[in-house]
């Protein structure tokens, strides 16, 4: 029998953990290989595979449509880029309105409650339709009939309702003793909110908000229903043109290239935060 000897500078526990880690990696790699291999072997055996491959995973179509689709995706990014900061600000306004306790400002509070209830209760795509088709239907002059404006507004209004709730949960998560400490110094309620509660609350909800904004980046594609030729719409055009679904797969891959790293990063932030708090 061999006795595990402690290498210089390593404890027995460290040696054990290193070994267990190595074993884990090997087992995980093998089982993944097995599953992926099985899929790659078995799926092509399906009777309809050839047809599916031709219409969804067509290499030629992929190469031909990719540059144009990538370009169209830049429009998605642009729409996201102007919506996101407006959502961040408008949601904060809503969240603060919901917290006002002054009776004279009760209408603001009522408005914020109704607002979040309504916009969280209606599917995004419906809001996009209603505002995106409805408002330009009023016959406004250019540029006020642009679907970009009203489509973006629909996204901003809807997402602000969710983000406002996230802000509020952050505000409520700040311990009452922080507020007490600020008030006991003689700070006003609004200064207490602005300098003590909000800075901590906003930091705490960064991961949750990141998930919201990842969802927003995907939902920008809903604007394709009311006009703008962004990536989903462009893929649809190619599909009709080439009678092939590969452009949709290309579009999906482009989205994933952005959303997967962002999601991983948000998860990383959440884990880090949980660890810091425990």
């Amino acid at each position, binding site marked *: 029998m061999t006795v595990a000897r402690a290498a210089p500078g390593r404890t027995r526990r460290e040696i054990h953990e290193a070994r267990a880690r190595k074993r884990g990696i090997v087992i995980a790699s093998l089982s993944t290989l097995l599953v992926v291999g099985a899929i790659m072997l078995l799926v092509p055996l399906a009777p309809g595979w050839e047809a599916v491959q031709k219409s969804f995973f067509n290499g030629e179509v992929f190469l031909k449509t990719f540059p144009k689709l990538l370009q169209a995706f830049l429009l998605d990014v642009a729409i996201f880029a102007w919506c996101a900061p407006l959502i961040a600000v408008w949601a904060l306004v809503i969240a603060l309105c919901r917290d006002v306790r002054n009776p004279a400002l009760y209408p603001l509070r009522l408005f914020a409650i109704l607002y979040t209830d309504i916009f969280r209760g209606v599917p995004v795509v419906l809001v996009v339709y209603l505002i995106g088709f409805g408002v330009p239907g009023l016959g406004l002059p250019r540029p006020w009939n642009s679907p970009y404006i009203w489509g973006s507004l629909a996204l901003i209004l809807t997402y602000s309702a969710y983000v406002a709730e996230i802000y509020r949960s952050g505000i409520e998560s700040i311990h009452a003793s922080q507020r*007490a*400490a*600020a*008030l*006991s*110094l*003689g700070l*006003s309620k609004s200064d207490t909110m602005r300098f003590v509660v909000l800075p901590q609350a906003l930091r705490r909800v960064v991961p949750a908000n990141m998930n919201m904004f990842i969802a927003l980046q995907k939902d920008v594609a809903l604007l394709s229903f009311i006009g703008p030729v962004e990536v989903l719409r462009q893929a649809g055009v190619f599909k009709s043109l080439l009678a092939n679904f590969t452009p949709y797969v290309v579009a999906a891959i482009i989205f994933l290239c952005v959303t997967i790293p962002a999601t991983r990063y948000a998860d990383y932030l959440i884990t880090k935060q949980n660890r810091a708090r425990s």
Partner: protein
Amino acid sequence: MTHLVLRSLKKSFGNKSVIDGLDLQVNEGDMVCLIGASGSGKSTLLRCINLLEPIDDGFIELDGQDISDPERDPQPVRQRIGLVFQSFNLFPHMTAEENVMLAPRRIKRLSRDQLRPAITALFNRFGLSEHMQHYPDQLSGGQQQRVAIIRALAMQPEIMLFDEITSALDPELVGEVLDVLRQLKSQGMTMVMATHEMGFAREVADKVCFLCEGRILEQGPPEALFGNPQQPRTKAFLSAVL
């Protein structure tokens, strides 16, 4: 001269009466120690004096002026009364210096540059000059609590309230915080302090009050209260903690 007067103070949470017709006088420059079992209402009393908790009935007079009128804005009063908590409650997203500067900057409308000399002097006086730029989580409990005291002092309050400020500290850090209180006492600060540090109360207090069921059951100079308690419940409490 009497500085702070509480007259038949009442406070309840729901139907649970916590302060029940309490009277207290605090003279200028005095250190008054509140002792009593956990749950006897010490924290609630201090929070009421600072107007953090609205009182139900009775009067609080500071310098001869009724500060407890529920119709009046409590904010200006709180600026005159410093309160330090058991759990420090520093703002974790600000450095020690920012913690201290926030209230004077916002309330007295002084700039950082105007405040810096006086605040640096406070940090020096309490042995924290190297820690001004540190965040609370980079400081020990004793250092955090001293920053919290400086934060309250920076508003130049007329009276300071301390709520078991050494209870959350490791035993070896208690001394450095109590030293701060000794300094304040020697400078003539009026102080009310809830504490379990009986030795300290005996040494520094001008008056010790035993709280029981929301009232002051017995009070007097420390020699009398610790040496010769009159009430059976005071005796029982003291023999349990001493």
